[in-house]
């Protein structure tokens, strides 16, 4: 789905919640992954110039969960370790979004190159 506007951030939360429920995640796990998605969606809109979210429902026998891929073609992140530090923000935020999303999820991966955009992948298992 497109993640371009603040209203899309609301839609992301609703859609991720539905998928998390479908994947059988408990309430606390649902809350964690939806909160992480909210942070990343907001980043995509505020810093990435808008982008997209792809949701994968995982059920491979061994485990069930959701994997989310946030992608944008914005300015990219020059210093990823710095961006992951709590409190660091290039905008008006609290600087908790990236690091927070990482803490809230079982899997976290980020690819970003200045001028070429950013891709963040997170996953939460049951």
């Amino acid at each position: 789905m497109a993640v371009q506007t603040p209203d899309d951030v609301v839609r992301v939360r609703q859609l991720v919640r539905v998928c998390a429920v479908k994947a059988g995640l408990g309430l606390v796990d649902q809350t964690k992954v939806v909160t992480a998605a909210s942070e990343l969606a907001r980043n995509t809109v505020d810093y990435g110039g808008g982008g997209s979210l792809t949701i994968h429902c995982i059920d491979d026998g061994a485990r069930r969960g959701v994997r989310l891929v946030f992608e944008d073609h914005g300015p990219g992140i020059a210093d990823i370790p710095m961006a992951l530090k709590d409190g660091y923000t290039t905008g008006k935020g609290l600087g908790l979004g990236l690091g927070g999303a990482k803490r809230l999820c079982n899997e976290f991966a980020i690819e970003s190159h200045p001028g070429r955009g950013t891709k963040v992948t997170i996953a939460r298992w049951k």
Partner: protein
Amino acid sequence: MDRIPILKLGSSLLVTIQVDMHDRLATTLQEDLTNRIVAHSARGVLIDISALEIVDSFIGRMLDNIAAISRILDARTVVVGMRPAVAITLVELGLTLQGVQTALNVERGMAMIARQDEALTQIAAPADPAE
């Protein structure tokens, strides 16, 4: 919904957040609350978040701001009704909400505000030491 309603509850203001907030709504709420605190000389602001399934850093920042603005205007802010899953997630997210007090519900929040107000009144007008 264009604005979040602010109710007067005794000498406090009560705000119930029930919708998914976007930036404009959050800014409008902060401005409305600030005006109302001054207009009513409110002693406290109660923010009921019992309907929120998610509190992310955007909402967290809004709560921090409201608490800071209220403090400058001599009012206490108490956030009430936080859901357990939200509390667990906030801690892991790293949102400490240090400037924000919390209470289980509106009644306890009001009691908290009244107690703090009374304590401050006693400090301001101490008993005569000669007595």
